[in-house]
């Protein structure tokens, strides 16, 4: 960028020197090719609470955290605020220009009855002094966090033009170990890791690979049972808690991945010493083998148009990402850089893959974004055991599992790598997060 500006000035200088006629003086032109490299500065005023005691939820803080985590915004510290308006009519825009906020979020939380609340919010354009958008809700206490995420989505869309993905859920598996037993739990939580909810609990029998159906209604996962050998693929209805077994597989199974139309699942099956990719019809449980290679082929994922599958294979010696047509033909290797690449999945545009990458020389495992068009890989994180990355439905954030000490925790990173955040910590070892496309 520096070089570009200097070049620009050199050209301008020459132009000026050449301009001998009196009125041909070139107007100074300053070209700017990049921004500050930080997010849009936004001020989120704590919502004005009307009711007894303290508010049940801090809506402003939830919204601030959502926006910050996306990497697209810089949340100005409330200690800098010169005033605390709660609606557009109370706003003195100058106060917010002084602290260089571009957008201002104000709102109110009012208790209207037993477990009944009104929430209102407005997003204001500080420099044009106008209301960009606003919302009003009347909800129960248990829905307040969800309301906050909806507000975040609205702000995100207004400011970036991209649909927000805050009002979505994530699924993950936790494992707790005591002296004798290992307890596995399949959990579902809000996109910020709050409001965790247990879906399944097993003892000494692992639960693997939760995967959301495209409509967000079902979770597929793999579990084992005491009575039978082999692995079971289950579908569980999140709303009702009912589940059904789609298939029992001899040997081992893992990593089910829904096709975009929701009719099929790609998964990894290991039987008779060989691990390959299969596609299973959800309705019938019918299996079709996609890869036949003595090497390990695993972790399949669909392209958004359903035409391709990507998977991890060590057929070249080390794990790398390969792509095949959905029928298993036309297999080609995608990643050529790095020591190892694994666990890839597509972003919603189909132009990028997120994956675990090991750049070699003892670097360990980080989260990388691979661009299919150029073959370039951007490394977004700096952990040593980062794993199981998954894109948000709008492609702006990535959820993954990382280690804090010996424990696995959930973390989120913005797709440009600018902001990383550990989500709320849970007891136990957290692994295999999956991000839903809907609430």
């Amino acid at each position: 960028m520096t070089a570009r500006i200097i070049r620009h000035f050199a050209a301008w200088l020459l132009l000026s020197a050449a301009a001998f006629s009196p009125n041909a003086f070139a107007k100074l032109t300053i070209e700017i090719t990049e921004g500050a490299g930080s997010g849009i500065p936004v001020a989120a005023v704590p919502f004005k609470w009307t009711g007894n005691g303290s508010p049940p939820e801090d809506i402003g803080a939830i919204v601030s955290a959502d926006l910050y985590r996306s990497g697209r915004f810089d949340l100005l510290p409330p200690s800098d605020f010169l005033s605390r308006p709660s609606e557009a009519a109370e706003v003195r825009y100058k106060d917010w220009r002084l602290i260089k906020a571009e957008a201002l979020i104000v709102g109110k939380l009012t208790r209207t009855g037993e477990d009944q609340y009104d929430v209102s919010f407005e997003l204001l354009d500080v420099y044009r002094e106008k209301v960009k958008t606003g919302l009003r809700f009347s909800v129960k206490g248990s829905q307040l966090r969800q309301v906050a995420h909806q507000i975040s989505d609205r702000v995100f869309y207004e400011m970036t033009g991209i649909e927000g993905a805050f009002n979505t859920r994530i699924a993950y598996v936790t494992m707790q170990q005591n002296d004798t037993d290992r307890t596995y739990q399949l959990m579902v939580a809000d996109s910020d890791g709050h409001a965790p909810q247990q879906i399944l609990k097993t003892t000494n029998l692992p639960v693997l690979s939760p995967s959301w159906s495209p409509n967000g209604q079902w979770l597929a996962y793999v579990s084992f049972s005491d009575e039978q050998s082999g692995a079971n693929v289950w579908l569980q209805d999140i709303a009702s808690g009912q589940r059904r077994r789609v298939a029992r597989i001899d040997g081992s199974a893992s990593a089910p991945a829904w096709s975009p139309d929701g009719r099929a699942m790609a998964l990894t099956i290991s039987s008779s010493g060989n691990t390959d990719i299969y596609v299973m019809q959800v309705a019938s449980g019918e299996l079709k083998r996609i890869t036949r290679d003595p090497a390990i082929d695993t972790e399949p994922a669909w392209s958004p148009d359903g035409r391709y599958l990507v998977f991890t294979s060590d057929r070249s010696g080390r794990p790398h990402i390969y792509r095949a047509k959905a029928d298993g033909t036309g297999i080609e290797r995608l990643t050529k850089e790095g020591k190892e690449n694994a666990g890839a999945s597509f972003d919603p545009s189909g132009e990028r893959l997120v994956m675990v990458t090991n750049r070699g020389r003892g670097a360990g495992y980080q989260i990388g974004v691979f661009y299919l068009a150029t073959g370039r890989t951007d490394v977004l994180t700096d952990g040593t055991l980062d794993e199981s990355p998954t894109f948000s439905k709008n492609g702006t954030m990535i959820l993954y599992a990382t280690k804090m000490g010996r424990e696995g925790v959930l973390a989120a990173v913005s797709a440009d790598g600018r902001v990383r955040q550990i989500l709320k910590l849970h007891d136990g070892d957290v692994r295999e997060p999956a991000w839903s496309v809907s609430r």
Partner: protein
Amino acid sequence: MPRRPRKGARPIRAFVYAVLIHVAFGAMLGVTLWVQPRTLKPIEGKPVQAKAIDLAAIEREKQRIAAEKKKAEDEKKRKEAEKKKKKKEEQERKRKEEQKKKKAEEEKKRKEEEKKKKAAEEEKKRKEEEKKRQEEEQKRKEAEEAQRQQDEQDAVSAFGAVAWAIQEQVRSNWNPPAGDFNGMSVSFTIRVDRDGNVTSVAMSRGSGNARLDESAENAIYKASPLPIPSEARFYEYLKEFEFVFSPQS
């Protein structure tokens, strides 16, 4: 080649002929008058009686008639001379008048020519003065232009730093919405006061993306006041300028 008569010769000759003709006719008239009484006398007739009249009386009468005749002739001559004189006088008058007229015309012409000459001289003088004035003006302008160019070059050489500071201040305040804006660009014409406060921001060319345009405009407002040098000569070149935002990812 026929010889052309000298101009002016013909009217004089014609005049002489006219005079001679007049004299001839006058003489002829005189002869006629003198002859007539004789031829008429017999018609009056009483010759017998006349014979009876005294010869002396006849003689006297003869003399009287002769005298009368002479008198008439003299009178005629006189008249003729008078007429001639009058004519001559008239001619002289005309000639003089013509001469006078001619002279007046010549005078007029002379005066006009003089006037013209004078005007031409004045015009020439005026033009020379104008030329001189223009040359001086040109010199003054050239000097001014040279000074202006010197100022401009001084300003330009210092501009690198100034423009850099402005650029950096706006850049550090620009938070473009994330996205692929490669190849897009938005331009603004900015005016600042002497303290660098941005007084007007006019978008001269939009990028087509309202969020990008707004973010760039916000950056300019946030960067105000811009680091403008206090020297007046800089302000001349910095009071209005252009910002072009062309994000490159």
